[in-house]
């Protein structure tokens, strides 16, 4: 029991994921600044932002909204992100945990933060937040099928097991999934799904700053917004780590493998940042078309290639 609490709260849960995710968020902002020939924020900036929101700023509750849900949503978002993070990172850091079917659980846990953003936005009573929430719902509808198909493809490729440790074992013996044509075809939609899950630029219509003023998060301030930031930081670690587990032979936490693991995560984040910096924001119907038509097509081609054994 105490060990489980330690896993959840300290390592590799809340504290570790928050700190590492904050670093990745800084990395993202720094690369963005370098792409735009700027100097960029200092290393500790994400932690300053988080602590400022947590300790200094006042928390305002909406007068005409559902206050309970408004307060509960950020807490549940952090909870969902952290549990997903623990379930993903534990098998990779060499703790023999997990159960048959934990991939499915992780998949649904990863959609909890987005759902909570929607609930929080709808309970704030702000029309722009409602607009953001409706866009987020449409975005989830479009990328979730693709993401599920990608996970199914990886399962198909590595021995029909829905357990994280089996998946990692299969890649250990049979080579990383990304090392084949079908693996690369699966990797492309997966990267875009993660981009949409993180709400980064081509798919940030739910929190478009310039048109609907942060959309879902418009009413959040103080501690609530700090928790939302924390959940975003944790997702910034969790989703690239999940991608590394699915495609790149996982992370290993011993000897020289530490370097490779860090490079894998940084590489995925770099890819996300470069996509974010070279693309304009899509409209919601363009995003739906992008996922339903093109990305699903790629996944289906990958399925055929897997069936042929390529």
């Amino acid at each position, binding site marked *: 029991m105490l060990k489980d609490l330690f896993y959840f709260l300290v390592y590799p849960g809340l504290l570790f994921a928050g700190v590492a995710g904050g670093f990745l968020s800084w990395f993202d902002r720094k690369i963005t600044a370098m792409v735009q020939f700027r*100097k*960029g924020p200092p290393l500790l*900036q994400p932690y300053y932002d988080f602590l400022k929101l947590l*300790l200094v700023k006042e928390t*305002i509750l909406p007068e005409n909204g559902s206050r309970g849900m408004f307060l509960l949503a950020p807490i549940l978002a952090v909870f969902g992100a952290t549990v997903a993070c623990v379930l993903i990172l534990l098998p990779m850091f060499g703790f023999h945990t997990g159960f048959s079917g934990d991939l499915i659980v992780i998949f649904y846990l990863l959609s909890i933060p987005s759902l909570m953003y929607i609930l929080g936005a709808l309970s704030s009573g702000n029309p722009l937040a409602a607009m953001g929430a409706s866009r987020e719902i449409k975005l989830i509808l479009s990328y979730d099928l693709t993401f599920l198909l990608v996970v199914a493809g990886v399962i198909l490729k590595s021995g029909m097991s829905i357990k994280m440790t089996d998946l990692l074992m299969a890649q250990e013996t049979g080579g990383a999934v990304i090392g084949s044509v079908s693996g690369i075809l699966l990797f492309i939609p997966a990267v875009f799904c993660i981009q949409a899950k993180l709400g980064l630029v081509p798919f940030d219509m739910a929190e478009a*700053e310039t048109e609907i003023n942060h959309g879902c*998060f418009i*009413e959040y301030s103080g501690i609530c917004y700090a928790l939302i930031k924390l959940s975003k930081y944790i997702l910034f670690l969790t989703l690239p780590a999940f991608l590394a587990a699915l495609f790149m032979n996982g992370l290993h936490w011993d000897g020289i493998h530490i370097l490779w693991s860090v490079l894998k995560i940084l590489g995925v984040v770099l890819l996300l940042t470069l996509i974010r910096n070279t693309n304009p924001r899509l409209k919601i119907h363009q995003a739906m078309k992008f996922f339903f038509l093109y990305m699903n097509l790629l996944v289906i081609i990958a399925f055929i290639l897997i069936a042929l054994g390529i």
Partner: protein
Amino acid sequence: MAFKDFIFRKSLWLFHFGGASCNNCDIEILDCLTPRYDVERFGMLLVGSIRHADVLLVNGSINQKDKVRLLELYRQAPKPILVVAIGACGCTGGIFAGGYPFAGPVDQIIPVDAYIPGCPPKPEAIISGIVQLIEKKKTEKAHA
């Protein structure tokens, strides 16, 4: 308390309110975020919602209609919030000071922490004003 002050200074998020402005100050404010001046290196970000703001930048002459909205914004902002009046119109009213829709310079409507005069002020002047605001907060702390 010193720690709280330190992190507040390190992460100031800006919200921009343009009154009945000629848009010159607006553009100079946006200039501060461009690669040449880059205020993000001080941890400053331009945010779209007043609920996330730490600094309220006000420019342009404030007329009767703007006054209501400015008061509403100030009321909705989470405290602590700093207010910076930018440009001649924001500081004193400028050439609009005698006009009939004019509702007074910003400091007669809400408390102002820093003034940045100029028509429009250069981006360097705006950055220097913000730095002086941060310094002022520091010395206030030292005296208290």
